[in-house]
């Protein structure tokens, strides 16, 4: 098969399906968000299952899955949020390599838990790179736009042998989250009561959450009375910011690189991964270190 003749047709794009890879770290000083797959372990696993390098570009769905018609015979794997998978109308496996013949339809249905499924294809999604990455950044619009019905995705031609596996271990998304929270730079912007509540209260994941941030609903955190504004400062993935309304949010991959509200704590990598799979309504609390 010659390069340039490998593709997938998007039959049903789903609510928000994007191309994701390792994103664009190292450019935050130019206000370019890190972006990239939210559930990195699931994204890497999907690539390994189809014989790709771990960091190849794959698709990230949002709850409602995606349907793709193969323009080339290839191997696909669906990981992350568990969802029914079918090929040509017949049930196929989740979390395993699945053969897809040219012309066949791959359907990834609505996730039964979690939010984001990853669909890797042997050869990787081969859209143009922007600053070294093929990732869609929903905040700044860098990278390819989200998938639309009918669009065509080029597929790369470099991949290795498909591993012989019939089961790949992957932790299912949790029904409630207890996240380890490390100290952030602006803890003192919370009152004593606010700080205590941060470590004891349970919030619920808001439906306003997206790739930029996981937003939390619940009793507002009390901030100290401060008249001055916090001048813009750099923020990190996993940063827990408390805006004026006292409702914390957790920065995810497409977060703005600077912010003017206090960051009171930072969730570590595993916590950020869990946030990427947390559905609206999921109870969430913090364990302060």
């Amino acid at each position, binding site marked *: 098969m010659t390069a340039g003749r490998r593709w997938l047709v998007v039959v049903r794009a789903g609510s928000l399906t994007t191309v994701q890879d390792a994103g664009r770290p190292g450019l935050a000083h*130019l206000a370019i968000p890190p972006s990239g797959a939210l559930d990195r372990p699931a994204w890497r696993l999907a690539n390994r299952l189809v014989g790709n390098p771990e960091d190849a570009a794959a698709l990230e769905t949002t709850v409602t899955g995606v349907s793709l018609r193969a323009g080339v015979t290839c191997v696909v794997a669906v990981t992350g949020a568990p969802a029914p998978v079918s090929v040509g109308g017949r049930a196929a496996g989740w979390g395993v390599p699945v053969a897809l013949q040219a012309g066949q339809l791959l359907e990834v249905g609505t996730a039964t838990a979690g939010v984001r499924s990853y669909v890797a294809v042997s050869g990787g999604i081969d859209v143009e790179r922007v600053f070294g990455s093929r990732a869609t950044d929903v905040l700044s619009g860098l990278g390819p736009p989200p998938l639309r019905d009918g669009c065509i995705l080029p597929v790369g031609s470099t991949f290795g042998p498909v591993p012989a596996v019939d089961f790949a271990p992957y932790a299912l998304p949790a029904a409630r989250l207890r996240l380890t929270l490390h100290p952030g730079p602006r803890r003192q912007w919370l009152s004593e009561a606010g700080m205590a509540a941060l470590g004891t209260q349970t919030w619920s994941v808001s439906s306003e959450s997206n790739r930029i941030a996981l937003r939390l609903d619940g009793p507002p955190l009390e901030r100290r009375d401060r008249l001055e504004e916090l001048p813009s400062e750099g923020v990190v993935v996993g940063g827990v910011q408390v805006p004026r309304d006292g409702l914390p949010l957790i920065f995810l991959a497409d977060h703005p690189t*600077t912010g003017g509200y206090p960051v009171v704590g930072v969730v570590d990598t595993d916590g950020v991964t869990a946030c990427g799979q947390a559905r609206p309504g999921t109870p969430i609390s913090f364990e302060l270190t």
Partner: protein
Amino acid sequence: MKVLPVGRHALLVEVDDQWAALGLYAQIQRRLDDCWPGPPPTDVVPGARTVLLDGLEDPGRVAREIEGWEAVPAPPARGESLVCPTVYDGPDLDDVAGWWGMSRQEAIAAHTATTFYVAFCGFSPGFAYIAGLPSGLAVPRLDTPRPSVPAGTVALAGEYTAVYPRSSPGGWQLIGHTDLVMWDVSRDPPALLRPGMLVRFVEADA
């Protein structure tokens, strides 16, 4: 100089003002070129009075190192600079001149006479907050942001000036425009303005 924790892999270094932050950013750049202790950070992000170091393997060690540094509130450094030819025809120029108690021409002269430095980027890719206006010349943001400001628009807000890298909504006071292409994803680096650069505006004919 105060070193604040940012989780397990980052630090926020806080200094007294914008000039000290620029000096610190320049100092970090120099040390990264010469003699950084251990693995370098993945990101160094200046802010209005901070510099964030992200992607550190051992923030504790870097924190101890930084606490021994002297704060030098002197800007740059690498000697990179940009001259930005500007047509002063913005819809808010008369308002700005009014706040400054100047004529339109005097306001243009004040802007072109200032030596600016790119303090930090934020808001959107390539959007540079350019510091240097005397604090007496700070201007408020618009009460109602415009839904669309064209790329290349030269604007003011607070003590900062900026040149919109891409068309976007904007609440800054618009004083003119430049034909320079501020942002181009196919260029490396994509942004004409990067933290630490010296910037001068010169008046261009319409």
